[in-house]
């Protein structure tokens, strides 16, 4: 009977994500003509999109790996702060990042073009390799490294023969994710590209939907995007394996340098890069936002803030309503293979850009733009689709840590499924639930695309306000609103960081 809980999420994702994407594919293939490949501009855009994504992803992964080693192996000063801080940076709306980079580096060097795009993409994406590789480093089995070293293998040999094998799937999967996000970055390229020479497919898609109102071209471009997303998703799934939560770990850092000057050099490099990429842009948002607070109309801001809160709260509750029972049923499945067979469903939406998902929904259900209430529903539905992949991570971790023995004891004493849920599951999942909700809330607060495409006239959220102010060159208003959104997100993600630390300490 409890297996029925599996279906609401399945039906939701199939109806509002898989079916619209499949519909978009079918329409796109129908309308697809070779003319798209004879369009020299589009071919240039296609080349540029994946070329810049390749460079951005490679740089981000190299940097993320370097950071992960320094934080997890060298235990450099301030590493824990940077670890926590990286989550905030990756969840900030790209529009805020663009504004931060313009405000900081725009004054020193001409950021428009390659420099701005690479800086922006690295700001947004370094957290992915940092966290994935960092977690793989923490969870790896260290005793084999100790044994190999005691048998005379050099540190480089240990890395090549043992450590690399333990972390390589995280390196490749983080590269795939970073490549995908870099190729679909909209506002970074739009505001930091500086002109048609630096346009990617996502910007071309936005122009086709919003400016040229050319739905046929938009569908064809999104078909290209979605095709690449599907291929990347396939490779990503191949790299996935169910992670084992290790029990007590050996406290031993194979790559910890003995010489103090080497550690000092690492610390210096880490913080110089972190300041250049993360701190400087964020500091510029604060320093330029505070004096501009006077330009804000507080009544209007309050209305936008309230709308943002209402939408984000609804998104979080709806996501949990669908996601939690789904993961609960997967947790109860008899084998890991059975669980993995269905787990990919919740991760799939992150491989399609928000614009493609929104376009798919509006092509499949054209009525969503006809009435205000349906527009709201569309905003919430698309945001739920976007946050489900984000929110499922902490919940899955929570379920992995849940001891089946406690459930067995409750069952043997005669507890029914509800009693087992309330006594043997929920108390131990509370922190993961809260963490997941906070992460979803933070991501939803910064989401722009769905609001931009579906919001009825007169409805504003904080992120939409920033976009509109920037589009109309009202930079003072944009900076002040950005500061408000940044403070709100900082609050949410500080709580996430705090809970993550508690989670880690309670699991070891």
């Amino acid at each position, binding site marked *: 009977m409890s297996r029925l809980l599996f279906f609401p999420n399945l039906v939701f994702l199939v109806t509002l994500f898989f079916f619209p994407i499949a519909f978009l594919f079918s329409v796109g293939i129908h309308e697809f003509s070779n003319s798209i490949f004879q369009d020299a501009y589009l071919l240039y855009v296609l080349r540029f999109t994946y070329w810049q994504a390749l460079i951005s992803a490679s740089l981000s992964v190299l940097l993320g790996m370097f950071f992960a080693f320094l934080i997890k192996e060298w235990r450099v000063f301030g590493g824990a702060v940077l670890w926590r801080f990286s989550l905030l940076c990756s969840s900030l709306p790209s529009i805020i990042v663009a504004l931060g980079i313009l405000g900081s580096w725009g004054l020193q060097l001409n950021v428009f073009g390659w420099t701005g795009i690479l800086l922006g993409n690295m700001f947004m994406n370094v957290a992915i390799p940092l966290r994935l590789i960092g977690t793989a480093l923490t969870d790896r089995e260290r005793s084999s490294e100790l044994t190999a070293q005691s048998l005379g293998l050099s540190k480089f040999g240990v890395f090549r023969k043992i450590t690399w094998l333990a972390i390589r799937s995280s390196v490749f999967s983080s590269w795939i994710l970073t490549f995908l996000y870099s190729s679909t970055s909209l506002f970074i390229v739009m505001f930091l590209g500086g002109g048609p020479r630096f346009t990617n497919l996502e910007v071309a898609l936005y122009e086709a939907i919003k400016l040229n109102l050319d739905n046929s071209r938009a569908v064809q471009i999104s078909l290209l995007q979605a095709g690449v997303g599907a291929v990347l998703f396939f490779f990503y799934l191949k790299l996935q394996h169910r992670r084992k939560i290790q029990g007590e770990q050996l406290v031993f850092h194979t790559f910890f340098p003995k010489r103090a000057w080497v550690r000092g050099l690492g610390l210096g490099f880490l913080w110089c890069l972190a300041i250049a990429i993360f701190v400087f842009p964020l500091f510029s948002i604060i320093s330029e936002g505070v004096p501009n607070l006077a330009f804000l109309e507080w009544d209007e801001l309050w209305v936008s803030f309230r709308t943002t809160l209402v939408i984000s709260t609804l998104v979080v509750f709806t996501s949990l309503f669908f996601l939690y029972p789904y993961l609960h049923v997967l947790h109860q499945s008899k084998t890991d293979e059975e669980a993995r067979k269905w787990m990919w469903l919740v991760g799939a939406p992150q491989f399609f850009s928000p614009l493609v998902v929104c376009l798919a929904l509006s092509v499949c259900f054209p009525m969503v733009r006809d009435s205000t209430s349906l527009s709201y529903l569309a905003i919430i539905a698309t945001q739920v689709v976007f946050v489900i992949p984000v929110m499922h991570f902490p919940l899955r971790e929570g379920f992995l840590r849940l*001891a089946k*023995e*406690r459930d*067995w*004891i*409750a*069952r*043997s*004493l*005669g*507890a*029914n499924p509800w*009693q087992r849920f309330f*006594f*043997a599951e929920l*108390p*131990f999942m509370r922190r993961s639930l809260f963490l997941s909700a906070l992460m979803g809330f933070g991501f939803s607060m910064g989401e722009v695309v769905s609001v931009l495409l579906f919001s009825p006239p007169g409805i504003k959220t904080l992120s939409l306000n920033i976009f509109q102010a920037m589009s109309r060159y009202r930079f003072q208003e944009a900076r002040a609103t950005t500061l408000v959104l940044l403070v709100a997100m900082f609050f949410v993600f500080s709580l996430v960081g705090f809970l993550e630390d508690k989670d880690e300490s309670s699991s070891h």
Partner: protein
Amino acid sequence: MNQVLIENLKVNRGCFKLSLDRIALNPGEVLGVMGPSGSGKSTLLQAVAGFVPIDAGSIKVSGREVSQLSPEKRKISLVFQRPWLFENQSVLQNVAFGLQLQGYGKKECQKISGEWLEKMEISDLGSRRAWEISGGQAQRVALARALAVQFPLILLDEPFSALDRPLKREMRKLLKSVIQGSGFCAIFVGHDWRDIEEVSDQVLILEEGTPVAFERTCDLKTHPHPLVKAICGD
């Protein structure tokens, strides 16, 4: 009539196979199960409790065939190596948990739970939260929780292996006296011969899913099986 009767039990889990011909336990008797890692000791407990499906055979508890029942209907309680308490509840609530599920009234639950806490010599801990007590105390609470429901069979999966030696000795005595006094049966899985020797009346030794010895504890003590020597040392 035997209180617990397991006959022709067969369990297949991939390439691992467990098979047992006959195990019979009278009221108050404890069966100790020993064997090297991977010999099927925990699988046997999980199959009897109903968490691993059996392929053939019968499991009778108090004359009732339970092999086709779900775990919650078998009336078999469990204790593991770790206590796995419900941490958001007090010690008393933990012990009363099973009683409430069995339909006892609130006052009755409190009374019986209090008595079991007294038997386990932890009556002063009743109002404490589960995370406020030590490992040894938590294991006593887990035992009290499993025994309070007065199910005819209790399964113990290495319940003392996380405890230190003096505490183990104390717990062995306590468990033996409680089981003998109450008339329950128990299956006790362990690695330590001293635990098995003191607690069990019969001993089953498993190797790769097959019984290699099934004898009275006193007989095994005088003529130790080579596998017991190998596991425990001379």
